[in-house]
């Protein structure tokens, strides 16, 4: 393979040249270098053409992706191609550098990263954990949304696995990397894959990666992020002790059994090994468990029945809305709190605090309110699926401790029924108390206690 040296200049397709600064990392198909192009630092992904089946078609595909542009700002998308080398030995493309403050999906699953002392070479473990449950579920929504945008653009990711994401654990922001195998749906430029993430039909050799197989891989990624384990690794797999190639083909291809398959109990998670999965399966509400169960049972043999991204997005926006952060320090989903019969109010079993709920006209579940709860455009704006723009927040009244209210942050004026029975106009930046008879007209969407 043609390796590049620091200081070497690489000519770019449309003029100019990029100067190699150092190696950033290496993968199955090539090496990533830090380069300077026109005074700006980029990452150069440099391919070994011998490891690619049809380099011309592969390069052409990247060129097409560059011209089409990224489906959303969550992708570290190819930006500029290099000129083909005269001896046709290597080529590459430039992309933006991964922004600071993002941890790899691998480190998130392991819950630590290694900090290496440059002087001694010794490594220290640093804990990697989401700052809040809100950030975790936001990351899930961001991943789902990124793939929804990609699939809407008529493309598939192909080799979705744990190496493809970086997440900001403070905010839940996501960057999708390794975008070089992304291809129009139905096309495949020769990427193999990894059992466990790949759909069973690919492992078996009877299908090629496409949008449907992406959906399976996406469900695996989401399951691993939430339940911290492998959806197909249970008793049946553990019995093999040694995971040979034959066992992988069996358990991830020919005889894939979801660990919580309601009709097949041969592969349940094993205590002492799969404790995360056992514990978290009990914590997540039923509608989330049902969606995973459907994708990993019916969806194994019927790819078209796998949960689609838009459905996942709705489920996880609901899940994020059902987080309750109690002032006693307990934060979990509403389904774990005590509730009255119609789920219109919740109570913390630990400290006794009570939480009213709001019923929105555009939403088929009630949203619990607590100090710090944020509302987004997808709740307060008709027809919106914007889960990022904050339009309101539950706050405590500064003059009267213990009094809970909602602050309008939407930029619009809301009509709110106050305790005196009259409707008030509440401009952006102002607030109103939460009380038994509260009703809010956001304009197009209404909500009431």
């Amino acid at each position: 393979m043609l390796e590049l040296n620091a200081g070497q200049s690489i000519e770019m397709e449309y003029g100019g040249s990029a100067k190699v600064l150092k190696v950033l990392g290496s993968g199955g198909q090539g090496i990533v270098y830090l380069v300077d192009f026109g005074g700006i630092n980029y990452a150069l992904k440099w391919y070994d053409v011998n490891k690619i089946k049809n380099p011309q078609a592969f390069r052409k595909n990247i060129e097409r992706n560059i011209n089409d542009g990224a489906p959303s700002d969550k992708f570290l998308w190819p930006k500029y191609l290099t000129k083909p080398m005269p001896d046709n030995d290597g080529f590459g493309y430039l992309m933006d550098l991964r922004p600071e403050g993002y941890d790899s999906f691998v480190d998130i699953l392991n819950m630590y990263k290694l900090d290496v002392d440059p002087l001694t070479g010794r490594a220290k473990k640093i804990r990697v954990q989401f700052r809040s449950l809100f950030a975790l579920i936001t990351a899930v929504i961001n991943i789902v949304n990124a793939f929804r945008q990609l699939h809407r653009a008529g493309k598939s990711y192909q080799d979705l696995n744990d190496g493809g994401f970086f997440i900001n654990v403070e905010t839940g922001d996501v960057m999708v990397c390794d975008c070089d195998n992304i291809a129009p749906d139905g096309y495949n430029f020769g990427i193999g894959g990894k059992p466990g993430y790949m759909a069973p039909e690919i492992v078996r050799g009877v299908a090629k990666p496409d949008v449907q197989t992406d959906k399976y891989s996406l469900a695996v990624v989401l399951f691993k992020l939430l339940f911290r384990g492998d959806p197909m690794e249970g008793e049946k797999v553990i019995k093999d002790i040694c995971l040979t190639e034959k066992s992988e083909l069996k358990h991830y291809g020919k005889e894939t059994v979801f660990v919580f398959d309601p009709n097949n109990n041969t592969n349940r998670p094993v205590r002492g090994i799969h404790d995360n999965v056992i514990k978290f399966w009990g914590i997540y509400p039923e509608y989330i468990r049902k969606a995973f169960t459907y994708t990993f049972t019916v969806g194994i043999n019927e790819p078209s029945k796998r949960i689609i991204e838009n459905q996942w997005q709705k489920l996880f926006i609901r899940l994020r809305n059902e987080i309750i952060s109690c002032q006693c320090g307990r934060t979990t989903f509403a389904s774990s709190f005590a509730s009255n019969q119609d789920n219109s109010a919740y109570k913390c079993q630990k400290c006794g605090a009570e939480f009213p709920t709001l019923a929105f006209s555009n939403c088929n579940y009630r949203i619990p309110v607590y100090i710090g709860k944020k509302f987004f455009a997808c709740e307060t704006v008709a027809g919106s699926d914007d889960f990022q723009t904050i339009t309101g927040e539950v706050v405590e009244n500064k003059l009267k401790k213990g009094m809970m209210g909602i602050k309008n942050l939407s930029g619009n004026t809301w009509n709110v029924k106050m305790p005196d029975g009259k409707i008030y106009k509440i401009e952006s930046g102002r607030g109103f108390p939460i009380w038994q008879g509260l009703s809010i007209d956001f304009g197009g969407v209404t909500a009431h206690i």
Partner: protein
Amino acid sequence: MNDEFEKSLDFDDDPLNAMGVSRKSLVIFFLIDTSGSMKGTKMGELNTAMEELMPEIRRVGEADTDVKVAVLTFATHLAWMYPEPISIEEFEWSRLSPAGITNMGAAFEELAIRLSRNSFLSSPSLSFAPVIFLMTDGYPSDDYKRGLKKLNENSWYKHGLKVALGIGKEANDDMLAEFTGTSDTVVHAYSGGQLAQLIKKIAVTSSQIGSKSMTLSDDTTGEISFEDVSESKQKQLGEQIQEIVNSEDYPKDIPFDSGW
């Protein structure tokens, strides 16, 4: 409030309160000849290459695999560098000094005992088949066939990824191929430069292949059978090692055994 009461109010329902994901295990075994003939450049290069290698392959297992290392040295006596496999993230190389004869057969028998769930492969979760990397500069002084027979009865060995590095011209490639089961994963170093480079490249390649799920090729045209995937990792390792040996940047400088 007493502690018991506090505890009874502790709800274990925080979705963030997780442990790291359950990982598969991989043990990489290095079997290293420390007989007297390894003195000088050979052992110097080997020690240095191994010292530098460990930090380089620290993250090889990623989120899937917990990689451990065990080093067995053989000369007149056998010795494990540590009493049990050590996590690659914590492994520190102790420099080896050569002396004595080459009791390779005894090393094979010792390895056969340790390749067991009751011994070095005791992880309760799933394991990948071990990587076993043999390095020697000579012909066994003892009855290696007897040791090899013991190994061949061990299914961890049978499924394992085996690779052998002969150092200098005394090492016998045919004998090494008996150990690996295929000549594709037997390589030969004739010089210090080659030795250092081969140790690193082979260790990196074999631990990468060993610590991951099999790679699915993209040129299949129908349902894959269990036969198709049998020993696919060993084959993949063989191909990649041949690629390393045949590559242009493989140093062809002065052999260990000439030019003195």
